[in-house]
C-alpha cells in the first residue's frame, strides 16, 4: 500500500511549527487534471452515494428475503436465515471486502476468476456487493423483529381469509412490518453510506478516499477532512429529513406515529 507515502504526508503536515491554513485550496486545480480540488471531493461524494444506494438495494432485497425466511414455520428456512445472518454479522466488513476482492477470484475456475479480475470498476462492484451483503444481515434482523412485533391475530386473520402464505406476507404482514421498522431502517441506510468509506482499502475513491488523496497532493490535511466531514453531515441531514417525510406519509393510523 501507499501507506509510507501517507505517513510521510503526516510528517510534512506536522513538521511545521504552525499549520498553514489555506481555505482557498478547494478552488485550485487538482493534479489529476479533473478540475479543482472541490470537484475531486464532489466526485467522491457522488461515488459514495452511488455505492451506498446500490449496496442498500442489495441489502434490502437479500435482507427482506432472509428476514422473511426467519419467520417462516419451515425449520430449514429458519436455519438458512440464521446461518446467513451469523455469517455476515460475525466478520469485520473490511475482511469481507477482502474476501470478495482478493480471495473470490482465486477460488473460482480460472477463466471466471480472470474475467472478475479484469472487470472495469471492480472496486465499485465489489464494494456495493460486499457492503450490500454485510448490511443484509442487519436488515434481516430488523425485519424479523418487525414481523415478530405484529399481533399474532394478523397472520391468523390472513389465513382465515384464505390467503396463501405468499399473499399474507405480501398484503398483510410486510406492509405493516416495513412501516414499523422504518426508523431503524433509516439508520441502517445511513450506516450503509458510512460503510462505503471502508472500500477505500480496495481502492475505491469515494469521499473519504478523495479527501485522503487531496491531503496527499496538497498537504492541506485539515481543510480536506473538514470538507469531507461537512459533506457527510449534509448527506446525513438530507437523508434524515427525507425519511421523516416518508415516515409521516406511510404512518399507520392508530399507531403512536400514526395520524
Amino acid at each position, binding site marked *: 500500500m501507499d501507506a509510507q507515502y501517507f505517513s510521510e504526508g503526516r510528517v510534512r503536515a*506536522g513538521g511545521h511549527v504552525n499549520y498553514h491554513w489555506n481555505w482557498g485550496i478547494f478552488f485550485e486545480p487538482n493534479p489529476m487534471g479533473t478540475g479543482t480540488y472541490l470537484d475531486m471531493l464532489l466526485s467522491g461524494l457522488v461515488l459514495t452515494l452511488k455505492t451506498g444506494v446500490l449496496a442498500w438495494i442489495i441489502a434490502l432485497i437479500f435482507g427482506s428475503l432472509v428476514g422473511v425466511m426467519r419467520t417462516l414455520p419451515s425449520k430449514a428456512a429458519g436455519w438458512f436465515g440464521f446461518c446467513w445472518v451469523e455469517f455476515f454479522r460475525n466478520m469485520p466488513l473490511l475482511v469481507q471486502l477482502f474476501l470478495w476482492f482478493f480471495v473470490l477470484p482465486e477460488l473460482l475456475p480460472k477463466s471466471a476468476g480472470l474475467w472478475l479480475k479484469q472487470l472495469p470498476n471492480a472496486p465499485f462492484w465489489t464494494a456495493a456487493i460486499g457492503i450490500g451483503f454485510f448490511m443484509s444481515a442487519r436488515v434481516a434482523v430488523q425485519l424479523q423483529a418487525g414481523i415478530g412485533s405484529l399481533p399474532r391475530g394478523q397472520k391468523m386473520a390472513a389465513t382465515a381469509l384464505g390467503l396463501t402464505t405468499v399473499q399474507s406476507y405480501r398484503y398483510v404482514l410486510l406492509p405493516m412490518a416495513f412501516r414499523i421498522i422504518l426508523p431503524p431502517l433509516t439508520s441502517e441506510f445511513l450506516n450503509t453510506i458510512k460503510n462505503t468509506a471502508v472500500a477505500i482499502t480496495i481502492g475505491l475513491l469515494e469521499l473519504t478516499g478523495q479527501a485522503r488523496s487531496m491531503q496527499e497532493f496538497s498537504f492541506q490535511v485539515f481543510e480536506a477532512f473538514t470538507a469531507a466531514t461537512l459533506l457527510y453531515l449534509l448527506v446525513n441531514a438530507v437523508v434524515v429529513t427525507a425519511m421523516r417525510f416518508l415516515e409521516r406519509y406511510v404512518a399507520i393510523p392508530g399507531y403512536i406515529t400514526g395520524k
Partner: protein
Amino acid sequence: MFSNFDFGVIIRALPYLFYEGLSFTFMLTALAALGGLVFGTAIALMRLSGYKTLGRIAGFYVDFMRSLPLVLVIFWFYFLVPYIGQWVTGASRPISVGAFASSLITFIMFEAAYFSEIMRAGIQSISRGQPAAANALGLTYAQTMRYVVLPQAFRNMLPVLITQTIVLFQDTSLVYVLSITDFLGAASKVAQRDGRLVEMYLFAAVVYFTISCIASFGVRRLQARIAIIR
C-alpha cells in the same frame, strides 16, 4: 480450487499473527471499550443532567460522531492528535504520537458516542422511585449515581454493551488504513510478503468469525440468565 492451498504458510505465520497481531487487537478492543464506557457514561450523564447547555453539547457530540464514517474519524485523529498534544503540553511543535496511542484515542472518542446512547437507555430504564428513594435517604447526586443508578443501568445493559464491544472488536480491523499491525494488518503483511492472499485472508476471516461467534453466543446466554432474574 483448493489444489495449491498451503496450510504451511498459515502455520509458519501463527506466532507472528497471534503475538503481534491478535494481542494488539485484543488490547485495543479492551482499552477502547473501557475508555469508551467511562467517557460514554459521562456523556450520558451530561445529556440527562438537566442542564440545557451541557445536554446540548453532549447531544451534538453524539450526533456528530455517529454521522461520520469510522475510517474518516481514524484519519482525523491520526493527523489531529499531534496538534492536540502540542496544545495540551504546550510544546513548540506537534508532538509525535505512536500508532497505538493514536488509534486508542480514536476508538475511545468514537465508541463513547455509541456507548453513551446505550448507557442513556440503561439509565432511563431505571424507575423513578430509585433516585427518589436515594434522595430521600440523603444521598448526594454523585452518590445516587455511583451506588444506585449506574450499577443497575450497567447490569441491565450488559448484553448490549458486550454486543457493542463485539462490533468494536471487528471495527478495530480498520486501523489497517494506517498500516498498523493489528491482527488483520499482520495477516495482510504475511499475505503480501509470501504472495498468499487466499490463505491469509481466509484464515483471518475464520479467526474473526470464531471469536465473534463465541462472544455473541455468550451474550445470548447472559441475556437468558438476566431475563430470568428480572
